[in-house]
């Protein structure tokens, strides 16, 4: 049905939610097939060991067991190892990474064998009795220890320091020696476990006689996965279909080509039966990629009155025991935002990637940019403390001046647009900043047990991954474009195929809004298909806040193509020249005679019946566009966190959280708010609760949700949100992306607030997460220092 309502900008309820809320989602574990068998991996209880012998006989004799296979049994199944697609330097050292490890276990998730059985329980029982003889080796988890190479994970590489990437610097580096104020700080950011609400899982099946296979996987990248699994298993891409059904979140942890996916496909081929694998939460904690795990040495050069002259960061980044799909590229992604929203004259960033006996790291919501923003914003606070100035004042005087056209930044890339001060001022106004400072002073004066702290974080992020030419220059092996197809069915329905792969973000709704406005129809008449390589041929999937700025723009361009063809048909039917038509109120109308009109549903039906199309016009009203962005998008904003810290126990309560973000044009403000809420909750988790902890043997002690502290709704405060809108110049929609902003901005706002609450006691650092014990210790140490 044709309509003239404006949908972009409206907080439309999400059309994808009804089946999810009714328990009718298509998640992998909801799917079953005749003849299906279950796969279970054998992960021996070692963190670092040589595998001397594997006895599978007891397991093979267990009820229901169909096969027990080791790497040796599957030698021919994998022509290639698991892919890593971002060799960021020419001399990067590349560890081999097989789906089953051959002779050495290097981390707790390394599997040495697979068991296949008729039921999941039988597979689990049998996996327990696969006997692995192993010789334990010394382990190394600490980054500086690992860099000494006393314990080397991959002997063929000769070192754990597998990659060194340097931005190369910009501006006069001598300020780091000669500036009037030099602030040097070291910040450690522990590993985080992504914790998508649905773990990983997959179901592989095929027609072996035809050599055709399908993998249903809880993945965020069906298109990239098809390429990667084809390389790993040798199944030609033309015979390999990958389906991402409903996927219960990912946060980057399903942006990968995993051993289990390759194994399930190989076993479906080997056993000629459908093979299913569902990860349990304990496995998820060791076998699914982790995030963060970095150590920064930071230098800020400035003046006594608060001008930032230079920012310099030297980082050690924990790669884990192998490279997963993007592992070494993650720190580099942050390498372009270490200037924050400021305008320093000098810039330096470099990092070394270090192998350790822990789960491989990879993208985790924000991927490199939260790590960068955390140290930048902590460092600015340290600078303000050093020179005795208000951190808000220091930030405001250093904000980059506004610009509406793409502008070169000190770090070497063009930033699409930016106007940082309005968001900054609005955030401070909403937080009632000066009043809060007065309350803080009063509490300090009275010596209250509970002290108030105010933390700021101003950020810029690089999203909309990515211009293919820049990816190429950065040695990434794929492109950054995306695609959309619009098919106008007769009688008014429109089918959209998007190359993005939403897994909770709400694209079905947002895409419907864009198409509805563009084609003058109702969003209810737009069906958005995604996540199946046989349905959407072209695509680069969903990660890096790219979907709307790349995939959404491809869709906007496809809309234009549909309208172009529709116009030709409309002119023919209305017997006027195309120039005599105008698009208004959701239809092509004859100028001056608005009642003479054709809507897109009318024209789609004409194009489908094809009874009387103009000469040379092909039947069917369709449009396809592939969009390669000319630049990244650069959202920005300012967050303010106000906390109350109990100085006797060290416990922090968040009193208020204010966020003002600029993600360019907004398609659906409700979805944007939801992304910000979730991102901030995850950032608060990072700031106050979550960290992966290991014992001296290298075992993960935070091995379940009992010990790994994901906060609940009870710990997360109500958030006060607002936005400024500086349209991006990178795409026609003006959008910048919002999936990661909350996670990028919030950790330093919260930790800065905690430090601020107790800084009058002499505390300058508490660490992350700012647990009650860390805060308590920092206070004890500061008091001890006074004595």
């Amino acid at each position, binding site marked *: 049905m044709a309509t003239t309502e404006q949908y972009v900008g409206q907080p439309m309820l999400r059309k994808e939610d009804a089946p999810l809320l009714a328990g009718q989602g298509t998640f992998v574990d909801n799917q079953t097939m005749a003849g299906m068998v279950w796969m279970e991996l054998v992960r021996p209880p070692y963190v670092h060991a040589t595998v001397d012998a594997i006895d599978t006989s007891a397991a093979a004799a267990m009820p229901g067991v169909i096969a027990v296979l080791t790497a040796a049994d599957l030698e021919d199944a994998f022509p290639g190892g698991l892919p890593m697609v971002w060799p960021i330097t020419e001399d990067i050292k590349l560890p081999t990474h097989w789906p089953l490890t051959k002779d050495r276990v290097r981390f707790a998730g390394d599997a040495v064998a697979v068991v296949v059985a008729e039921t999941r*329980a039988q597979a689990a029982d049998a996996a327990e009795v696969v006997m692995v003889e192993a010789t334990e080796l010394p382990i190394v988890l600490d980054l500086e220890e690992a860099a000494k190479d006393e314990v080397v994970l991959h002997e063929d590489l000769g070192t754990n320091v597998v990659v060194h990437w340097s931005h190369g610097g910009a501006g006069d580096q001598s300020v780091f020696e000669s500036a009037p104020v030099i602030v040097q700080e070291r910040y450690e950011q522990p590993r985080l476990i992504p914790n998508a609400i649905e773990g990983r899982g997959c179901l592989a099946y095929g027609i072996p006689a035809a050599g055709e296979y399908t993998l249903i996987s809880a993945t965020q990248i069906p298109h990239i996965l098809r390429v990667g699994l084809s390389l790993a298993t040798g199944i030609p891409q033309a015979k390999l279909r990958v389906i991402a059904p409903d996927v219960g979140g990912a946060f980057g942890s399903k942006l990968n080509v995993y051993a289990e996916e390759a194994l399930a496909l190989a076993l479906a081929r080997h056993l000629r039966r459908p093979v299913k694998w569902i990860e349990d939460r304990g496995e998820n904690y060791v076998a699914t990629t982790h995030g963060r795990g970095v150590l920064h040495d930071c230098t800020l050069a400035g003046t006594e009155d608060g001008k930032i002259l230079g920012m310099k960061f030297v980082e050690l980044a924990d790669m884990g025991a192998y490279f997963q799909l993007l592992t070494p590229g993650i720190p580099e992604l942050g390498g372009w935002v270490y200037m924050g929203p400021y305008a320093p004259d000098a810039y330096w960033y470099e990092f070394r990637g270090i192998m350790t006996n822990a789960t491989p790291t990879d993208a985790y919501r924000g991927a490199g940019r939260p790590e960068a923003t955390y140290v930048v914003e902590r460092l600015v606070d340290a600078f303000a403390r050093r020179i005795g100035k208000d951190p808000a004042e220091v930030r405001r005087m250093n904000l980059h001046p506004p610009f509406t056209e793409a502008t070169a930044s000190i770090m070497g890339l063009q930033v699409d647009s930016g106007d940082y001060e309005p968001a900054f001022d609005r955030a401070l106004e909403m937080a009632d900043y000066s009043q809060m400072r007065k309350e803080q002073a009063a509490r300090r004066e009275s010596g209250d047990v509970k002290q108030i702290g105010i933390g700021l974080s101003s950020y810029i992020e690089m999203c909309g991954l990515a211009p293919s030419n820049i990816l190429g220059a950065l040695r990434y092996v794929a492109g950054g474009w995306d695609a959309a197809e619009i098919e106008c069915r007769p009688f008014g329905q429109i089918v959209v195929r998007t190359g993005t792969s939403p897994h909770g973000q709400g694209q079905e709704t947002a895409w419907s809004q864009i198409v509805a406005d563009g084609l003058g129809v109702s969003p209810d008449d737009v069906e958005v298909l995604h996540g199946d390589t046989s349905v959407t041929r072209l695509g680069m999937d969903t990660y890096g806040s790219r979907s709307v700025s790349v995939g959404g723009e491809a869709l906007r361009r496809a809309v234009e193509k549909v309208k172009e063809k529709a116009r030709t048909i409309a002119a023919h039917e209305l017997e006027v020249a195309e120039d005599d038509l105008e698009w208004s109120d959701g239809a092509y109308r004859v100028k001056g005679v608005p009642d003479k009109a054709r809507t897109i549903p009318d024209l789609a039906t004409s194009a489908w019946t094809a009874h009387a199309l103009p000469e040379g016009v092909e039947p069917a009203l369709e449009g396809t566009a592939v969009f390669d962005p000319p630049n990244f998008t650069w959202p920005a904003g300012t967050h303010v966190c106000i906390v109350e810290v109990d100085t006797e126990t060290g416990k922090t309560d968040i009193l208020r959280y204010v966020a003002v973000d600029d993600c360019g044009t907004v398609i659906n403000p409700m979805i944007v708010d939801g992304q910000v809420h979730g991102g901030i909750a995850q950032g608060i988790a990072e700031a106050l609760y979550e960290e992966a902890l290991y014992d001296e043997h290298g075992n993960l002690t935070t091995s379940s949700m009992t010990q*790994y502290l994901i906060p609940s709704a*009870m710990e997360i405060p109500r958030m006060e949100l607002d936005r400024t809108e500086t349209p991006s110049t990178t795409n026609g929609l003006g959008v910048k992306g919002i999936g990661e902003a909350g996670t990028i901005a919030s950790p330093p706002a919260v930790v800065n607030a905690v430090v601020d609450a107790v800084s009058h006691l002499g505390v300058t650092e508490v660490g992350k997460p700012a647990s009650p014990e860390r805060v308590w210790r920092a206070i004890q140490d500061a008091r001890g220092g006074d004595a």
Partner: protein
Amino acid sequence: MIPAPFDYVRAGSVEDAIEALVSREDAKLLAGGHSLLPAMRLRVARPATLVDIGRLSDLSYVRADGDGVAIGALTRHHDVAASEALQEMCPIVPYAAGQIGDPQVRHLGTIGGSVAHGDPAGDMPSVLMALDATFVARGPSGERTIAADAFFTSLFQTALAPDEVLTEIRVPRAADGWAYLKFNRRAQDWALVGVAAVRSNGGARVGLTNMGLTPLRATGVEDALNGGADPATAAVRADEGTAPPSDAFGSAEYRRELVKVLVRRALEEAMA
């Protein structure tokens, strides 16, 4: 996440349950299942048989019992928290029950299960220690009562024999002054440290959560109070005789200092 194989028996009565415990090797009682089942799913606990007593509704009650309250062992935490009799006679018990886990846990977990599990990090055991509660157990040779002080013997160990079923918890009237301070990182967590304080005869009885292998009484604090010390002075002795764990939530050293702060605050609240 898949438990090791086990047999399952549903008990129709307490006698049934006792009979199953006597006749089967390595049998465990299943009540609300909120401690046992997670341990089984991790294959940390591998009982050969589960004896399910979850449907013995005659063990779910709260009723006045002389100058106290008797609570059936299978009473769910939610029902304990909502009990008017307890709120009137012994309000620390429903308050603490409301602090356990989250609503889903409280609607399935039982007071008896929480006690019989013997977890020093559980909220209810230290509260019952502070109250000098009495536990009623039934076994093949009949019924007996066990004092709270004698009940918790070691980590996850109690005075219950392998063939005994905990049937009732009796608490005295204690409505004059009380406090339960649960310190945790997240609302649904076990206590990093918990302190139960109940006013009595000018002093107070103080129970400690997660400060050792069992729930403990802060005897040093109680002695100091009996000797006339004020709460702040008495609280300094809160870690006497404790052996707190070090774990992902906090170190033993931190817990030793934290308990002093919490005991002081709990006493100030209970004795105000």
